[in-house]
């Protein structure tokens, strides 16, 4: 995991705290010369976690590749809000083809670059990222993603996971967490919200492909996210980063709570932050003091049905059990801190 000499929580604030660090340890985002790869003026909602995640990730990838980067983008919020014709917020060469093929398009770009370098038509070591939301990654784009992984194509795929099809009006995806309300898993019936026992965690499936590098991250920990993107760029072959990105619209959360909720997802254990190489976990971001899942769930309207006049204790306990399992499975407890 990323090494950081100063623990920012010790300062009593969760600000990125660049002033506490030496210039060469500061984040890419703090750099005056950051590329603003996803430039201002795009049309994301206020507090959009995906816009934040994409800017952090692509700026870091640009930094790591000396600005020699091409991006392929799946259909979805990120594509729609960044390129309403004739405007574009992208400062990198960028292509959007379809909802389900970003990984394959990126494979094609990487193949073309390989041949161009072989022929001596370019000397630049141009690298490729593909990016999409959870729907474009875990559902409709999963075939192409798995193909790209198993061939070990030289592509970094970044999934911005907000747990549903937010662009089309908040429908369930295979990344929607249990109990969450979406437009297609309404809080009605015997088991309100998204059912338990369904869905998939693509980082684990990526690991099963034994690709060089897999990581998860949140937009709450900028340094960790940047570190993982830069680290991913030190590998050749298929790499996967899965970033949790709150969606104020879909989650029913205040737009000012995006960072807070990202942090709570990690600190409760509901979203494990870890990295893996060649199929084996190599480290995880530790939780200093595990927080009850309720603190993460309560501020979100998608879980409001759990906290009505008759709180759904059983469901909350089941969700707590999932968090506890993550804490065990990914060794998330900071033993030194306790």
């Amino acid at each position: 995991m990323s090494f950081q000499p100063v623990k920012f929580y010790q300062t009593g604030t969760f600000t990125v705290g660049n002033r506490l660090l030496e210039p060469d340890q500061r984040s890419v985002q703090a750099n005056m010369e950051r590329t603003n790869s996803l430039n201002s003026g795009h049309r994301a909602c206020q507090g959009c976690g995906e816009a934040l995640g994409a800017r952090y990730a692509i700026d870091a990838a640009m930094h790591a590749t000396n600005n020699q980067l091409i991006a392929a983008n799946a259909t979805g919020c990120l594509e729609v809000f960044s390129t309403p014709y004739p405007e574009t917020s992208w400062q990198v060469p960028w292509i959007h083809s379809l909802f389900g093929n970003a990984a394959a398009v990126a494979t094609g770009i990487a193949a073309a670059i390989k041949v161009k370098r072989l022929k001596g038509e370019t000397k630049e070591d141009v690298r490729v990222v593909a990016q999409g939301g959870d729907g474009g990654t875990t559902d409709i784009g999963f075939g192409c993603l798995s193909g790209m992984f198993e061939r070990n194509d030289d592509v970094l795929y970044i999934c911005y996971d907000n747990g549903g099809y937010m662009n089309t009006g908040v429908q369930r995806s295979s990344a929607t967490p249990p109990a969450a309300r979406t437009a297609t898993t309404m809080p009605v019936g015997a088991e309100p919200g998204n059912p338990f026992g369904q869905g998939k965690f693509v980082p684990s499936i990526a690991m099963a492909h034994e690709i060089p590098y897999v990581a998860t991250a949140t937009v709450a920990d900028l340094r960790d996210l940047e570190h993982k993107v830069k680290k991913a760029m030190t590998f050749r072959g298929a790499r996967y980063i899965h970033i949790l990105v709150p969606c104020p619209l879909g989650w029913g959360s205040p737009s000012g709570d995006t960072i807070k909720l990202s942090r709570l997802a990690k600190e409760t254990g509901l979203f494990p932050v870890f990295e893996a190489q060649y199929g084996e976990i190599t480290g995880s971001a530790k939780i200093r003091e595990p927080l009850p899942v309720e603190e993460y769930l309560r501020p979100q309207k998608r879980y409001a049905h759990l906290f009505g006049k008759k709180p759904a204790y059983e469901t909350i306990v089941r969700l707590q059990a999932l968090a506890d399992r993550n804490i065990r499975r990914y060794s998330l407890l900071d033993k030194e801190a306790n």
Partner: protein
Amino acid sequence: MLKQMEGSQAVAEAIALCRPEVICAYPISPQTHIVEGLGEMVKGGELPECEFINVESEFAAMSVAIGSSAAGARTYTATAAQGLLFMVEAVYNASGLGLPIVMTVANRAIGAPINIWNDHSDSISQRDSGWIQLFAETNQEAVDLHIQAFKLAEELSLPVMVCMDGFILTHAYERVDIPSKEQVDAFLPKYEPRQVLDPNDPVSIGAMVGPEAFTEVRYLEHQKQMQALELIPEIAAEFKAGFQRDSGGLVRGYCLEDADTVVVAMGSVLGTIKDTIDEMRDAGVKIGVLGVISFRPFPLEAVRAALKNAKRVVVVEKTFAVGIGGILATDIRTAMDGIAIRDYTVVAGLGGRPITRKSLREVFNKATFDELPALTFLDLDWAIVNKQLARERAKRRSGPTAENILRDVGDHVAQHS
């Protein structure tokens, strides 16, 4: 160089001569021998500076092709039937983005019922996809059309489908003249993309386009295909100068000068039709045939010019639009707007059913007496059809149609053996 070889291998050699930079494919009969041949050439070093990617589906094949073409690489893939349908979303995307990908379609029927043999229902289903579609009559023409296709695609920045009949051409061994490297290099310039993903000059490709500009973008796709109507004959003429053969162009006529009856068709069946016409000419029938090479763009003017002195036209096509009839025939009718001649549609060769001279001669003869129904299914077995219809009338749960028919055909064969 003259060689006795399989159609697929000939096409593989032709593609290799075009110096593709990325080849991606997913196997499907009857396309397999083409990509196997290319895979071997890349792996064996005969085709250096080329990436061969084994993808997990046809959807991925076309998607990889979109990425590599947008990154400036000359890109090739091949498919057929279900494979073409599986990649449809990306097929439309490639043309919408204006990427000059060349794809072979080894024409095969679409299921259900599953069938691996030849007809044209796969590529014809993509007639409105914005791809140029060229149909090869022979393996020699398949070779030549692929070489021309790269030039055409890259000149216009549009993708081109070269359609060749599955098995009938792809698996047929015959004499083919494979051009030399020097000839192809002289004919086909290096690919200079109109748009390219380049970190030193970043562009966004594939932006959201609203009602304010969508019509214009789509119109330009049409406009480019209209340009192709001029370019295709020019490229064919240039090809002839460099390779000393007639290949390609928009349409090709045979015995049309004094023909009262003109048959229209596409692909390898033209050979059988020409033989039939020779026989009928010997018997004094004034009949000729017009082969359509460029199905998209559709050469309305050229077809109209070829048909203007005819009394009737018989369109023989290896697919049809369920619920109305001929597809090529509909386009031919558009070309004949204002010309008062009768037209007949003969649907033939579905799912690989042999199209014989005997059957063709029968329908052509009837047509010359204007006794042919407007829509004919060649060699349709009415006894089998009626038996199934009777079964459906008699019983609600009449069972799966195809399997019933197979059983009836089996019984029929047993009775007559």
